[in-house]
Every structure is written in structure tokens, then in C-alpha cells.
């Protein structure tokens, strides 16, 4: 029978001992443990349970010695020198003296830390302001945003907001809803007090501020009984109050002309509480038409004693019941109520946390840099530590010295970092897109100052611990040997090298993120829109039902307005439509070829004759709509390419007949095909679009354009859009003075706003990546320079023995390059895994875009080569005789 020899205990344990157990105990303690190890093995215990047992016991023993050692040394030293605090002060003084003596490496370390801490604090203050701080309203979690998606029996659906009937149902029937309000954001022109100016405004129903829980700074706010209101009312923001009225309380009750309507100022809204945007300056009170068909975003407040989930259920029940009453048309409804907080910040949260992570990486890279510098310096000071240790300085005493140095560095770094953060915050405020909510209150306060200080302290202690570990264990005899570079053993090189590898890996990841975002942004702004947005104005009117009792009246208004505007010499063309590009509304219809069982879903839009030419979308087949396409004439449609291809493949679509949704499956003649254009967001492909003539929708229940509101597209002839705006408003007011003014915006401005967020993120990511790159370059430079200085003797001997300068150059450069290559490999692997988190923010490229990966790798390698080459060249220029004489 053969016996298997017993397995030896795990080696890792010996390392644990090596750190903490005093050398006089090492042998017997590990012997005792080994004895038990072999005994348990002989008793038949499996290695699977034995190994963890052994490691755990080693760790516990090491910890016991570690604790006992510290307690003892502390007691001895404090009794000797009058306290910990005194000697720490000495340490700090000593560290300060050291910095003055070596200003260059110290200031490099401080700048690296300042950069890392500054970037971190700036991003933290944004995250704190946007995500962490509660909304400025009482019990903000009780404010919900309600919206609904309706799917009608006839195959159509629309959604995004709350129909008025259900708004009323919620207001009247719900027990859990304290208040509910509609709001509709836009812009208004305030005139009559100085120069007329456009302000971001909102049209709100009377309970709007009750929902938010905001009390006016001055005034009573909107009347709760609208019956008693004789004049249109407006509330203004504190900022506007100060700029227009100089903060005069007499502003209350005075009149303000808002979009040519005189409104009484009834309240001042305290700053910092603005909604829907923090920049909203005016809130105009609007009435709801009892028979209205308004469809807008709504917010509500849940009563304080009602649990939120119960309120959610009740809201859903009431909305469902109210839809059932509507019965005939609503087939299915989907209600969603999200907390106001979620609806405000939900969209930017992932991106902000990703930025925070990127900023964290920058700090890590900076820390690696400083650790590097400190370790290199500790190596140079090996002799000093050796002497101090021989003269009786304990290990803890030496460690404390190094920690004091790193604390001093990091404190200086964090103080400078606060300055850097302030500058960065300033820059971000100036460049941040309006889509990032809640940024206006961003500034410096105690929290944002404490964060960099805490970060600095933490990095200081961590850096100190890392770099002091070896500095405090000098081999005294070796250190004292003349000219020996004792503390540059393989272990130290290992730590230094792994710092370099980690640093380059992290930088590659950061650069990769930046490069992917930038490449994607470039694709996004270069995307072919399919139309020409320049010089196009979009106006939207939200008339109540009382204004236009029938669709005919509605259309007449637009006809009159279009006619008036088309005579304006500055107008190139004008068209009306139920949608514009990038409007966040949709209305789906199902379309099919007669006889086919397969139907396609398409977005239905009702447009006037000149719509395509004003928009600049190309007609590629057939014709656009004509004035003769009116109610009673043959139903016609224009398809976009995508829909035409889906329905007819490559066959010509013009002249074909399609069936559009509707109870009687009416047959519609395809009159034309328009080239695909991006009707929704830029990062989404063109959806299938079905256009119907606006005039044919009169008397057609399936084309309820009046439910969707209407947009007017006005093309300016000479690009002077700002001059067109007042003419547009006054033309509308001349036709119908009582019409609430519509919001006016430039299509190109909307486009630019829609890419503001990706632009901002790619710019920030790029800044972080470049910052990290500079840090790595400095770190590499330092590392290679340090190697050169350390191995001068070896180099000169090589040169003296006939090695060519080129081979010495190669040798030194390979020192730095090999670590970076390993780091780049690791970074690429991490990037391949991690980049899919970015996929949601990318457009037109894959998360593994080979171009971005290759560009970043090459870029990093070029910088690496440069950073290594400069100090390496010095090695080749050594004069052997001179170097040998001085060393």
C-alpha cells in the first residue's frame, strides 16, 4: 500500500506572518500551526476545509500580534516624548522641511492630487446638486407626475400626457389626491416694462403651486375660485421681480403684458423652486374649458396621510373607470405615475453616475502617480530610514513620518483641488445643457468643500499607508552600506510596476470612454436629417375647445394665419401640421395593403399642402398634397420611404391603394412618397410615417388633429428669425385676440439642444481622459527617469564595455513601455467588458467600435513613447568616465 505524502500548508500564510508576527516568534508559531495542520490531515480532514482554516488562523494570529505591537509601541513612545500629538507635529514639521528641499517632485504630487480631487469634487457637487439633494418642495415624494398611453379600438393609439376628462375625474373623485394641475411649458414675450423680452414661462391651472407646496414670497397666489377672477393672472419668479420691478412690493397687483395680454401679478415665486424648469420666470394662470380636450402633462400631490402605493392604486382605478366611461373609443389604457423626482432626474442619473465613476478613475490615476513619486523618494531615503531605525526608531515611528508627509501633500492637494473644483464647476455651469435639471443652484457650500477635504484626508492616509509599508522596514545593515541602493529590491519594483500597469489600464479605460462618446457625438451631429432646419420657426397654439367649437373653425384659423404670414416679405413659406420633427408626441395608425393580412404600424401626421417644401423634405415619387385634397375628395396619403418599402417592397408605391385604420377600413390612394427624415430624436432611425392632408381630416373621426394641437412651420427667407417672432404673434392676435399665445422656437435651436447632452458628456469625458493621460505621462516620465538615475552605474559599465547607445536606449525605454503595454492590454479587456454600459449613450457606432479602440491605444502608446524617450535619451548621453567618477 502506498501512502501519499501529506500536503504542505499554504504559502500565503507565511506572507501574512511576515508582515505582523515578530521574527522571534515566526518559527515557533508557524511550527505550531503546521503541527496542527499535519495532525488534522492525518485525522482525515480534507484539504478543502483545512486550507481556509489554516489561512484564517494565520490571519487571526497575525492580527493579534499586530494589535498588541501597536498598543505597546504607542505606550512606550508617548511615555518617552510627551504624547502622540507632539510627535505628530514634529513629523509634519519635518515633512514641510523636506518639501522645501525638493520642490519639484512635491509640487508635481500636489498638482496631480489637486487635479484628481478637483475633478472629483466638481463632479460630486453636480451629482449632489442634481441627484442627492431632495427637491425644494415639502414632502417631494408625494408629488407624482401622471401620464397615460391610450390604445383605441380602431387600432390607433396616442400617449405621453393626461386627457382632460381624466384630469377632471382625478380631481373630483380621488380621495388620495390633494391637488392636481396641468402645466405647459413655453416661452412668452413680456412687454410694457422696458424692452420686450422673451422669458421661459408656463401656463398652469390654479392648483399648480398647491401641488408643489410652494407658498408665494409675496402675494396670495392664484385664486382658488376661478369664478371670482375677472382678469388674467400671472405669478412671477423672484428673479424677474427683482429685474423688472427692482424688488418693489408694489409689483403685486400691477399689470404685466404677457404675449399682448395684460395680466395682474398676484404672487412672487421664491427663487430655487421653479418648475417645470428652474429658469421658468412666469406662470400664467389658465382656465380649463369644461368641454375641453386638453392633453398635457399633469402633476398631483398625494395627501399626507395616504400611503403612496394605495394612492397609486386608487389613481389607476379612477383613470381606468374614467376610460371605460369613454368606452367607445378607448380599448386599452396604460397609466403611469412616477414621482416628480424620478421624472426630473431619471433621465440623467445613469450618465451622472458614470461621470462620477470616471472622476473616481482620474483620482485613482492621480493617487497612483503620487504613490509612485513617494515610493521613489522613499527609495532614495532608504539610507536615512536605515540610520533612524538603527538608532532605535520603531517601525510605527517611521511609518508615521511617511504618513505625515503624504497627509501634508494631500492637504495641499485638496486645498488646491477646491480651487480647481470651483473653476470646473464654473465651466460646467456655463457649458451644461439645459436638459440637465436642477443645475441652477449649483455652487460651493459646506458639503462641496467638505468632500474634497475628506477625499484629501482619505487619499493622504491611504497613500501614506501604501508607501510607508516598505519605507519603514529598511534592512539596516544594507542601508548603511556605502553607496548601496538598498530599498530597490524586487518587491519595491513590483509595487512600482503594478502602479504603472494599473495607471495605464485606468487611463486607457477613461480615454476609451471619451473616444467612444466623442466619435458617437460626431456621428450624431453629422447625421443626415433628411430636412433643412435652418431658418425654420415652430409655433404651437393650444387653443381651448371654446375657441374652436368645430374642427372647421380650427382649420379656418390656421388658414387665415397662413395666408397672412405668406404675404409677409420675410417669410419663405408657411405650413401647418399635427407634428414637427422632434415633437414629443405620436399618434399611431395601422396600415395595410388590401387583401394582405399583415398590417404595419405607422405614425400618422396630418399636414398642409406646403409642409414638405417648407420643411425641406424631398419628395421622391408622385406628388405632395394639393388644395383639392379636401373633405369629400378621394382620400389620399403620402408615405415615407420606410413605410413604402415595408408595404410594397421595391415596387412603386404611387397609385397603389392602402387601407388605413378606421372601422370601415377605408381605402386610401398613395399620392406620393417622401424621402425618410428623422421625425423623432436624432439617435432614432426614421419611423414609418403616414401623412394625410389636413383638409381631408375635417369630418373624419379617424383624423382627430385637434386632439393633438397644431404646429405651424414658418420658413424665413433671410434667416432673420428673431424679427419674425413678434410679427407671428401679432398676426395670430389680429385673427383671434383672445387666443392664448403659443410657444415659438427655432427648429435648429431645438436640434442643437437635443444634442447638448451628448456634447456635454463627451466634452467632460474627453477632459477627464486627457487629464489622466497627462498624469500617466508624468508618472511614466518620473518612473523612467528614476530607473535611469538608479541604474546609472550599470549603464555606464554597459557603455564602457561596448554596448551601443541605441541598445541602452532600447533597454531603458522597454522598462516603461512593457508596463504600459501590459496596462493597455488589461485596459482593453476592461474596456471590452465595460463599454457596453455606454452603449445606451452611443449613436451610430458599436460599443466595441474598433476605430475608437485602435485610436486610443495608438494615442496612449505615442504619449508613452515620448514620456519614456526623454529620460531614456539621457542614459545614452552618459560619459562613462564622468559617471564612474561621480558615483
Amino acid at each position, binding site marked *: 500500500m502506498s501512502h501519499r505524502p501529506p500536503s*504542505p*500548508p499554504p504559502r500565503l500564510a507565511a506572507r501574512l506572518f511576515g508582515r505582523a508576527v*515578530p521574527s522571534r*516568534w515566526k*518559527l*515557533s*508559531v*508557524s*511550527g*505550531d*500551526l*503546521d*503541527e*496542527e495542520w*499535519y*495532525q488534522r490531515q492525518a485525522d482525515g480532514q480534507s484539504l478543502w476545509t483545512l486550507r481556509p482554516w489554516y489561512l484564517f*488562523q494565520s490571519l*487571526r*494570529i*497575525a*492580527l*493579534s*500580534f499586530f494589535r*498588541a505591537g501597536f498598543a505597546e509601541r504607542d505606550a512606550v513612545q508617548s511615555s518617552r516624548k510627551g504624547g502622540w500629538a507632539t510627535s505628530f507635529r514634529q513629523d509634519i514639521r519635518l515633512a514641510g522641511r523636506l518639501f522645501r528641499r525638493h520642490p519639484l517632485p512635491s509640487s508635481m504630487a500636489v498638482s496631480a492630487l489637486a487635479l484628481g480631487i478637483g475633478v472629483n469634487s466638481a463632479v460630486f457637487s453636480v451629482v449632489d446638486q442634481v441627484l442627492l439633494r431632495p427637491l425644494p418642495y415639502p414632502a417631494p415624494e408625494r408629488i407624482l407626475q401622471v401620464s397615460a398611453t391610450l390604445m383605441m379600438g380602431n387600432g390607433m393609439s396616442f400617449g405621453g400626457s393626461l386627457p382632460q376628462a381624466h384630469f377632471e375625474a382625478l380631481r373630483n373623485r380621488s380621495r388620495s389626491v390633494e391637488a392636481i394641475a396641468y402645466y405647459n411649458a413655453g416661452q412668452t414675450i413680456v412687454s410694457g416694462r422696458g424692452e420686450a423680452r422673451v422669458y421661459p414661462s408656463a401656463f398652469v391651472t390654479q392648483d399648480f403651486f398647491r401641488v408643489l407646496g410652494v407658498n408665494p414670497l409675496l402675494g396670495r397666489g392664484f385664486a382658488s375660485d376661478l369664478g371670482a377672477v375677472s382678469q388674467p393672472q400671472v405669478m412671477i419668479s423672484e428673479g424677474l421681480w427683482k429685474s423688472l420691478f427692482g424688488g418693489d412690493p408694489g409689483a403685486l397687483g400691477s399689470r404685466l403684458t404677457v404675449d399682448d395680454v395684460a395680466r395682474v401679478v398676484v404672487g412672487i415665486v421664491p427663487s430655487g423652486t421653479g418648475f417645470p424648469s428652474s429658469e421658468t420666470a412666469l406662470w400664467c394662470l389658465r382656465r380649463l374649458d369644461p368641454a375641453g380636450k386638453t392633453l398635457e402633462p399633469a402633476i398631483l400631490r398625494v395627501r399626507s396621510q395616504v400611503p403612496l402605493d394605495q394612492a397609486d392604486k386608487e389613481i389607476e382605478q379612477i383613470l381606468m373607470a374614467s376610460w371605460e366611461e369613454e368606452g367607445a373609443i378607448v380599448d386599452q389604457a396604460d397609466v403611469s405615475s412616477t414621482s416628480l423626482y424620478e421624472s426630473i432626474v431619471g433621465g440623467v442619473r445613469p450618465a451622472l453616475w458614470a461621470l462620477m465613476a470616471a472622476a473616481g478613475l482620474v483620482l485613482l490615476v492621480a493617487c497612483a502617480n503620487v504613490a509612485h513619486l513617494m515610493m521613489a523618494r522613499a527609495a532614495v531615503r532608504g539610507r536615512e530610514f536605515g540610520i533612524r531605525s538603527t538608532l532605535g526608531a520603531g517601525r510605527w515611528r517611521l511609518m508615521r513620518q511617511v504618513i505625515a508627509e503624504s497627509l501634508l501633500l494631500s492637504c495641499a492637494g485638496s486645498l488646491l483641488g477646491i480651487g480647481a473644483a470651483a473653476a470646473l464647476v464654473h465651466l460646467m455651469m456655463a457649458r451644461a445643457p439645459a436638459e440637465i435639471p436642477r443645475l441652477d443652484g449649483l455652487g460651493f457650500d459646506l458639503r462641496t468643500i467638505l468632500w474634497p477635504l475628506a477625499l484629501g484626508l482619505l487619499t493622504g492616509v491611504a497613500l501614506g499607508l501604501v508607501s510607508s509599508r516598505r519605507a519603514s522596514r529598511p534592512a539596516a545593515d544594507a542601508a548603511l552600506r556605502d553607496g548601496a541602493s538598498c530599498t530597490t529590491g524586487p518587491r519595491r519594483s513590483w509595487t512600482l510596476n503594478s502602479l504603472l500597469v494599473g495607471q495605464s489600464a485606468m487611463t486607457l479605460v477613461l480615454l476609451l470612454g471619451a473616444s467612444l462618446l466623442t466619435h458617437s457625438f460626431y456621428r450624431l451631429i453629422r447625421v443626415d436629417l433628411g430636412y433643412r432646419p435652418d431658418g425654420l420657426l415652430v409655433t404651437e397654439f393650444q387653443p381651448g375647445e371654446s375657441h374652436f367649437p368645430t374642427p372647421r373653425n380650427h382649420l379656418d384659423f390656421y388658414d387665415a394665419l397662413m395666408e397672412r404670414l405668406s404675404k409677409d416679405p420675410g417669410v419663405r413659406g408657411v405650413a401647418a401640421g399635427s407634428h414637427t420633427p422632434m415633437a414629443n408626441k405620436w399618434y399611431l395608425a395601422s396600415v395595410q395593403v388590401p387583401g394582405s393580412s399583415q398590417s404595419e404600424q405607422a405614425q400618422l401626421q396630418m399636414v398642409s399642402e406646403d409642409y414638405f417644401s417648407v420643411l425641406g423634405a424631398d419628395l421622391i415619387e408622385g406628388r405632395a398634397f394639393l388644395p383639392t385634397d379636401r373633405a369629400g375628395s378621394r382620400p389620399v396619403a403620402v408615405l415615407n420611404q420606410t413605410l413604402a418599402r415595408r408595404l410594397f417592397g421595391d415596387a412603386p408605391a404611387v397609385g397603389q391603394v392602402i387601407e388605413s385604420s378606421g372601422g370601415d377600413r377605408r381605402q386610401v390612394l398613395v399620392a406620393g412618397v417622401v424621402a425618410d427624415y428623422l421625425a423623432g430624436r436624432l439617435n432614432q432611425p426614421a419611423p414609418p410615417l403616414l401623412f394625410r392632408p389636413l383638409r381631408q381630416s375635417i369630418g373624419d373621426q379617424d383624423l382627430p388633429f385637434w386632439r393633438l394641437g397644431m404646429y405651424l412651420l414658418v420658413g424665413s427667407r433671410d434667416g432673420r428669425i428673431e424679427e419674425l417672432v413678434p410679427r407671428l404673434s401679432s398676426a395670430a392676435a389680429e385673427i383671434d385676440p383672445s387666443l392664448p399665445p403659443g410657444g415659438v422656437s427655432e427648429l435648429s435651436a431645438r436640434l442643437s439642444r437635443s444634442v447638448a447632452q451628448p456634447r456635454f458628456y463627451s466634452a467632460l469625458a474627453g477632459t477627464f481622459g486627457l487629464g489622466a493621460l497627462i498624469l500617466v505621462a508624468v508618472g511614466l516620465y518620473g518612473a523612467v527617469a528614476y530607473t535611469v538615475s538608479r541604474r546609472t552605474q550599470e549603464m555606464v559599465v554597459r557603455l564602457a564595455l561596448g554596448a551601443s547607445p541605441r541598445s541602452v536606449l532600447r533597454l531603458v525605454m522597454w522598462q516603461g513601455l512593457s508596463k504600459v503595454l501590459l496596462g493597455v492590454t488589461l485596459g482593453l479587456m476592461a474596456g471590452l467588458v465595460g463599454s457596453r454600459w455606454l452603449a445606451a449613450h452611443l449613436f451610430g457606432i458599436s460599443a466595441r467600435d474598433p476605430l475608437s479602440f485602435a485610436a486610443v491605444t495608438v494615442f496612449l502608446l505615442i504619449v508613452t513613447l515620448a514620456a519614456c524617450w526623454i529620460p531614456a535619451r539621457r542614459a545614452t548621453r552618459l560619459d562613462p568616465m564622468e559617471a564612474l567618477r561621480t558615483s
Partner: protein
Amino acid sequence: MSKIGLLGELEQLVLLAILRLGEEAYAVAIRQEIRERTGLRAARGAVYVILDRLEKKGLLTSWFSEPLPERGGKARRYFKLEPPALEALSQARGAMNSMWEGLEPEVESI
């Protein structure tokens, strides 16, 4: 009272175990002895730290055995009490006894 001060509970247990084990007193056996007699499982690390401390106080001396194959060729560290240890033990016991004096019936009645 001597300069050493009063012994802690685990210190007493360790010293008494060494006394009992005589020539065979090394850390594993000491732990074993304490466990068998009192049922207490003293942590290994704590035993080492106490042995180290007692040795520094001069209550113990130690020496190494020959390398032993059952320990992977490592030596055992044996311990022996020094006269001050006996003094400290009896002092600790005396202190305990005087604190217990007259309290036994009361404690047992609970």
C-alpha cells in the same frame, strides 16, 4: 505588591498550564491543557501575545527543541516558569481569595 502588577485571568491560566505541563509546555499543549481543564477555547493569537508579554516581564523563559518532522521540520518553543511567576501567581490567588472571603454562601444562594 510586586512591580509586575496583578496578573490577568488568561495570564494566570497560561502560567498554571505551563506549571502543570512541566517539560512539555509549548503553545499547542498549553492551549490544549486550558481547554481540557476549563472548557475555555483561548484564541491562538491571544495565547502567543500573552506568552510574549510574560516572557518580556521575566516570568517565563523559553528554549527551542530540535527540528521535528511532524511540524514540517520546525522546532517547538518550550516554556518554563521563573520564580517571579510563582510569586505573581500566589499574589493573584491571594487577591482573589480576599475578595471572595465571606461571599461564597451569598453567591451560591443566587
